[in-house]
């Protein structure tokens, strides 16, 4: 904390300036502050510049890319987006991603909040065992189940349909979401539910009318996390969603890129189409994002 306010101190010192006033100490502080901001700004640029290149390149022609690969486009060309959206079928893939993500998010929230509530508030014989079974899922990577899951989905005729991604994603979302919701429900005061019960609510209406609305912050954190997970998922659709008509955006982008390897502006426009929705969701809900991600880690 000792470094904040130094600039104000200098201005109060008036004509004497910082150097003569307290000598070497002040000089060190000045270097310290400069170094601190230099590092912070360096990493800011490291994060942002590549994203700038995506947008800038997506607005160029192939000729412009060759002449000026890293700078601003000299003349903005939206055609790449139109081409990616129509010829590249990104419009179709975008729709697929929405069709896939919405039920995943809805059902993960619904099932996980029910189960999390049950495990937190309605202790029953075996509830600890059930919780541990869910927790074990946190330690098992998707790769451990991906091969047999392919044949299970094939047997129940889900392969080649949206269900092949929706249903497994709901199952895969359970461990973390239940852990998360259970922790939140455990933290809510017991009296609230009891009062509602005395007023004649049954277990389900206590959950639905009293507890779930109170869990708003946890639910919205989970919504953004699950949405990001569903939108960005890659390995799962790569294995189960190969059919062209049902591909989500991310997978569409991968195949698109291998088809148009040499057309960088077009590829970049595709990347931007995938990237922009998630960036917008992030910027709008960023507090929720951070809450969700840090909740498990810091407790």
């Amino acid at each position: 904390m000792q470094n904040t306010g130094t600039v104000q101190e200098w201005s109060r010192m008036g004509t004497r300036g910082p150097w003569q006033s307290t000598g070497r100490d002040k000089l060190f502080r000045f270097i310290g502050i400069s170094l601190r901001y230099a590092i912070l700004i360096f990493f800011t640029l490291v994060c942002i510049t590549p994203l700038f290149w995506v947008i800038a390149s997506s607005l160029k022609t192939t000729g412009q890319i060759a002449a000026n690969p890293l700078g601003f486009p000299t003349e903005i060309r939206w055609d790449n987006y139109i081409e990616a959206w129509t010829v590249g079928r990104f419009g179709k893939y975008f729709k697929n991603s929405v069709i896939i993500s919405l039920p995943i998010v809805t059902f993960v929230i619904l099932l996980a909040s029910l189960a999390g509530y049950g495990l937190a508030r309605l202790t029953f014989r075996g509830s600890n065992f059930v919780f541990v079974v869910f927790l074990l899922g946190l330690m098992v990577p998707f790769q451990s189940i991906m091969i047999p899951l392919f044949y299970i989905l094939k047997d129940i005729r889900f392969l080649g349909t949206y269900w092949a991604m929706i249903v497994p994603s709901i199952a895969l979302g359970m461990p973390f979401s239940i852990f998360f919701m259970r922790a939140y429900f455990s933290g809510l005061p017991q009296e609230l539910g009891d009062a509602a019960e005395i007023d004649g609510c049954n277990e389900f209406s206590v959950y639905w009318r009293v507890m779930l609305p109170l869990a708003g912050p946890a639910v919205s954190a989970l919504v953004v996390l699950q949405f990001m997970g569903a939108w960005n998922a890659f390995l799962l659709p790569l294995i189960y969603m190969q059919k062209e008509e049902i591909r989500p955006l991310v997978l569409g982008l991968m195949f698109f890129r291998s088809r148009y390897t040499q057309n960088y502006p077009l590829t970049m426009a595709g990347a931007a189409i995938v990237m922009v929705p998630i960036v917008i969701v992030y910027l709008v809900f960023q507090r929720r994002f951070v809450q969700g991600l840090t909740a498990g880690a810091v407790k």
Partner: protein
Amino acid sequence: MTTAAPVRQEQLSPRAKRKAIAGWAFVTPALLIYAFFFIQPFFYSIYYSLTDWNGADPVKQFVGLGNYIKLAGDSLLWQALGHNLIWVIIGTISPIAIGLLLGVLIWTGAQGRIVFRTIYFLPVILSEVVVAIIWNWIYHPLFGAVNQILGAIGLDHLARGWLGDPKTALLALLMTAIWSYYGFCFVIIMAGLQNVDISLVEAATIDGANGWQRFVYVIVPQLSHVLTMITALTLIGGFNVFGIVFVMTQGGPGTATQVIATYTYRKAFQESQIGYGAALSMVMTLLSLVTSYIFIRLRERQES
């Protein structure tokens, strides 16, 4: 047991009994879908790994531990595991170090922490495919930023096709992974720093500790919880890394960037060696479980 159960039933009040039934009703939908699409395939993985199957034959030939014996002598697997090891070491230390550096710099008094946090986290939310496309572009032999910058500062002789050169490909991929991940470490560390007792840091300053000493002896110990947590998460992520490698190099050139996940994918889904692929996926499972177990034990020790 037969006598114990009714006794317990009698002890339960009607309210507790109602709650127990409701509890099961609340948990069952999640449990069913989880059991069918997660637990079931997990046990099938173990079973498949004990068979020789090409995915099409009606018969799965049971071979016992045959696949696992084959694993032990598979030099491609050992090479891939070696790459995972490099990945895990560099890919764990670097983003955590960067996250710590940025976290402490901001925590000890910088303006605009929300702005920095927003920006540092931005790469974390991007899909692996987008990240791969961005970095393929950065490493592009002709137009890529790396070679352009090297050319601009007169180091043309260092320019190369970073992903095409077996000597640099793995490190180039690692740089990409670090870029897309340090923001995550930063955010978690920032959250952990909120719980650090600043008066201890001030006390150490008064006692004459310099900045580095305060960092090592006062701040880091108080962050140990958070640091073990992200180390475990990052290690598991490193053992299972797939997307970035698959999209950027497909494990190549040759097998220079093959990791266990891309190797498993190739065996199971491109060469239809389902049994062998399942055995490989069990190796990944084992690595994740062992890491989680060590993490849980460490956590218990920290708590006691």
